[in-house]
């Protein structure tokens, strides 16, 4: 038997240390906590989402790579996170089907499964009020996970969806009984009834025990805590697809059922509130498109006058946050840095001016403008609220 030296206190240090508390000068002289059941996050890493009353934003500027730690996945819900016993939870599929059926969570896990790494973004993911915004503030309502579940098409076959069905309603079991109407094509294409995220069961905030996951579509359509799907020959016109999640376009009209997330990118380093030093800087960021793979990210380090393609981190996945990097030698002069993504449909991320020109409005859902950061001669980095 190994002598268990300082296990408990070592563990206490690891979990509860305050920055002022003294660590051992030399960690090589003190045996640390031995292997445990569940790992910890270092007490030196203060990673938190930024909650408002209706959402909680992921700290994009603190992330590395493209996987969002599950406990830092953004949250958006309309009546809080329900507490659900997975043994009692069921999914009902009915309406225009030959065999209306009920599936327990255990049933769902028995079907052929699929996993994919993909982003999930709220379509209301844009803010630009002031210079002192972080990437988290500007667009922290996007996160990425490896999602696992059963393809909805598999369940459609099981219940025998009728040929005339053209939409389906997805309904959650939160206190908002969230509902959205989804064109049936998405259900056949790549919709997943997901029960797992980043290797383990969904987190409660992400729909535990089962949610709809619609790759590339506005987050609200991926209904969490899913309890019911009703097949129909028309949309249900729920409050979330009429009064909400519709956006002003030209001529006083409002666009409805705008599901796809338009291609977008943001530089996450350097960004406010970080500061930089003269010399070599690796500009880093994320780019994604709800319409497929991204094909190129351009970076400008001269306020948009010239653009250089950034390096994309392999593998570039379909409908997934993709990391980009661009090596830049900063000469210490004031400038602005920007990124601009192009996706495989040929869509190039617009400027704010292009967006407002096209829609005649300065806000609304599905706002994905190029984001610029001002670099000041003293190394301060500030968001540039207007990029027109």
């Amino acid at each position, binding site marked *: 038997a190994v002598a268990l030296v300082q296990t408990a206190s070592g563990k206490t240090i690891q979990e509860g240390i305050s920055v002022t508390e003294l660590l051992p000068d030399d960690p090589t002289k003190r045996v640390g906590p031995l292997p445990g059941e569940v790992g910890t996050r270092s007490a030196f890493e203060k990673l938190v989402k930024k909650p408002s009353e209706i959402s909680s934003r992921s700290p994009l500027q603190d992330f590395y790579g493209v996987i969002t730690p599950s406990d830092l996945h953004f949250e958006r819900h309309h*009546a809080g996170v329900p507490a659900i016993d997975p043994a009692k939870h069921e999914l009902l599929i009915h309406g225009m089907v030959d065999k209306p059926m009920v599936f327990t969570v255990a049933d769902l896990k028995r079907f052929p499964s699929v996993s994919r790494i993909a982003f999930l973004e709220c379509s209301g993911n844009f803010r630009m009020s002031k210079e002192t915004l972080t990437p988290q503030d500007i667009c922290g309502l996007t996160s990425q996970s490896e999602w696992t579940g059963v393809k909805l098409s598999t369940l459609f076959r099981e219940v025998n969806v009728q040929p005339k069905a053209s939409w389906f309603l997805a309904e959650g079991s939160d206190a908002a009984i969230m509902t959205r109407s989804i064109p049936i094509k998405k259900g056949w294409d790549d919709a997943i009834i997901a029960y797992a995220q980043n290797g383990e069961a969904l987190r409660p905030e992400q729909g535990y025990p089962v949610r709809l996951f619609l790759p590339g579509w506005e987050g609200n359509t991926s209904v969490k805590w899913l309890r019911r799907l009703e097949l129909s020959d028309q949309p249900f016109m729920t409050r979330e697809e009429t009064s909400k999640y519709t956006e002003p*376009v030209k001529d006083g009209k409002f666009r409805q059922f705008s599901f796809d997330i338009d291609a977008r990118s943001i530089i996450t380093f350097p960004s406010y509130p970080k500061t930089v030093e003269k010399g070599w800087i690796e500009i880093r960021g994320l780019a994604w498109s709800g319409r497929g793979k991204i094909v190129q990210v351009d970076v400008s380090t001269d306020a948009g006058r010239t653009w250089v393609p950034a390096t994309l981190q392999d593998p570039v996945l379909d409908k997934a946050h993709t990391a980009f990097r661009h090596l830049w030698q900063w000469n210490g002069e004031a400038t602005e840095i920007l990124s601009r993504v192009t996706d495989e449909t040929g869509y190039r991320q617009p400027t704010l001016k292009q967006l407002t020109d096209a829609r005649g409005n300065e806000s609304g859902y599905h706002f994905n403008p190029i984001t610029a950061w001002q670099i000041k001669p003293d190394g301060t980095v500030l968001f540039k609220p207007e990029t027109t």
Partner: protein
Amino acid sequence: PSLSVTRPDTVPWPISFGFGRKATPTEIARLDIDIRPDGKGLPAGEGKSAAGKVIFAAKCAACHGVGGIGGPNGSLVSTNEASPKRREKTIGNYWPYATTVFDYIRRAMPFSEPGSLTNAEVYNLTAYLLNANGIITEKTIVNAQTLPKVVMPAQKLFVPDDRKGGPEIK
């Protein structure tokens, strides 16, 4: 189906995996609470604005304002703001279907006691909010027959997304 296959993509997909159970009409009815624009799903019963007004004052006004205007959680009733830009979105100026009013109130309101209203209360509240927004008269009886026929002022404002990917910014 036999398993004498050598390529995974030729694995015979069964007609049915046999997991899950048939849903009974009773359990479907218990969950099938949605209301479609054509009125499908609306329950028996009816409501009137006057009755709804009383309920609204008691259960809703604290969050949505007296008469549905100006509460901490947003107005539900339109006023005539000068500039359309500053105009708050309400049932009167932004909701394309009257059935959504019934559906949403019944599933989600009042915020702190969701699911506590009777169908009659929801019919009354629906009548009240439609009347307060000047869409139906005070006398109109709201029920499964009349509600789907209400034409909402905002319906003509909504257009479906016609973007298909590609270079267009729209």
